[in-house]
């Protein structure tokens, strides 16, 4: 069944059609939420809230890309979830030592794949990227996630976050620059090209 037909039926109150739309887009929605929230449970909560919110707002859908419209609701749900987290801050399991120094998080040490070394390497890169993503300001994180992780174009991102396209471009440039600077701290985990760059950087600095 075509997406347009599913949307029409969902707007008319067909719950099955709505759920089929959810199944089509839930993976991208959850992944965007996960990259923004950097936490699986929070991402699942945000995605579920977004689905409920989407069901309530179905009659306000005015055409265009359904995926972009859904992602807009997801990012709003993430904003709400992040606001809630700020209001009720949780204590991380091992954020820092008694001296206030950051320690490696259990997730960082976790051997998720327990497979061949190359797979382990991919996981480490992923964790490094996620670590740097989490360190970005919320507005930069959302833009770089939508463009580089989810693959949305600038116009779609502008619609999703409700800002002019120029703002998207400038935020993306700054986000990438910050990511680049952050990833230099993980040079031994990164592909050769990153390692090469950071070594050059160190030579120049010395």
């Amino acid at each position, binding site marked *: 069944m075509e997406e347009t037909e599913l949307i029409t039926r969902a707007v008319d109150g067909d719950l099955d059609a*709505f759920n089929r739309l959810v199944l089509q887009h839930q993976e991208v929605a*959850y*992944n965007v939420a996960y990259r923004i929230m950097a936490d699986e449970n929070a991402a699942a909560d945000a995605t579920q809230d977004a*689905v409920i919110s989407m069901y309530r707002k179905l009659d306000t859908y005015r055409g265009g890309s359904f995926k972009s419209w859904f992602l807009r609701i997801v990012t709003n749900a993430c904003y709400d979830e992040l606001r809630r987290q700020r209001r009720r801050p949780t204590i991380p399991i091992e954020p820092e030592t008694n001296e206030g120094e950051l320690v490696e998080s259990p997730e960082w040490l976790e051997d998720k794949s327990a497979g061949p070394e190359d797979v382990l390497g991919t996981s480490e*890169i992923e964790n490094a990227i996620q670590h740097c993503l989490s360190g970005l300001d919320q507005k930069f994180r959302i833009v770089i996630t939508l*463009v*580089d992780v989810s693959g949305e174009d600038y116009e779609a991102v502008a619609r999703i976050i409700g800002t002019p396209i120029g703002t998207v471009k400038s935020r993306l440039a700054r986000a990438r620059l910050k990511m680049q600077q952050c990833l230099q701290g993980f040079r031994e985990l990164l592909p050769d*090209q990153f390692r090469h*760059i950071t070594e050059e950087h160190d030579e120049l600095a010395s």
Partner: protein
Amino acid sequence: MNWQAEISEKDMTLLCEYLDDTLSIKDRAKFETRLQQSPELTQALEDMTALKRSMRSLPCKPVPHHFTLTRSEAEKARRGLFMLPTFGWASVVSMILLAVIFGSEFIFTNFSVPQTPAEPVAMMLPDAAPESALRQAEEESSQPVYLLNWASVGGKGGGGAGGSGLPVGGMAYGMGGGLTEIAPEDAVVAEPEQPAELTLTEPMQTGGVVEPTEVASMLSEDKITVEPLIFGVREDQLGQVITIEPVQSEISAVVAAQEVVESEKEPIIPTNVKWILAGLAAAFGLIWLLLKLKR
């Protein structure tokens, strides 16, 4: 190569657009020329390409569970859909009603005529607001009235008794000494509509008192003759103060004036209604806020 310090923010934005293939053909050609001339830009482009590739290669996380809605969840979501705006609008309507009530009371209090023809005290004091009438009456009632015996009888005329701001009383007892002709238009102030102002008649025994009804009947003729009213002449009490007391009529005037003031101060809408409305507005608003936060 440390290109980060060398490249401006504008160049960084252009580089990202080049990387994401969003530049126009003309701008793209121009940027490629600059790329060939600038090793920093070339290096930055390589780094950004690697970063983008790494970001795109992040594995897709499998969903922990399906996010579809069950029938009950959908119904609950729909219910919440109606409750939130309902309480929101109820709160707004209550607030508007409250504002209208206070606004109308403010307008009536500040811009309405203070007296009405149906209120006798207000009629007697056409140029004064009820508050000033009350003040004047209170001042006068707090001062004792001295009723004196005069040494001679008749021919002295007489002043208004007390000049109490109650002109009817003043004029009625101001007629003294000799026969006096009163034109009806001059005597209109003695009309019997204000019997309360004629209460000083009792101690005036010697000359006889013109009853309000008599005055009224006399006024029906063109020219009337009024028997002289001789006040305060008692042979056995010459030179003595007969009585010092607040005049009863003034006390009643004070009471009447107070009633007028109180009736004017009484709000159009009872205070209880205002409290109920304020309470409803607050309660609805609170429920709306709780529902909003819960969502």
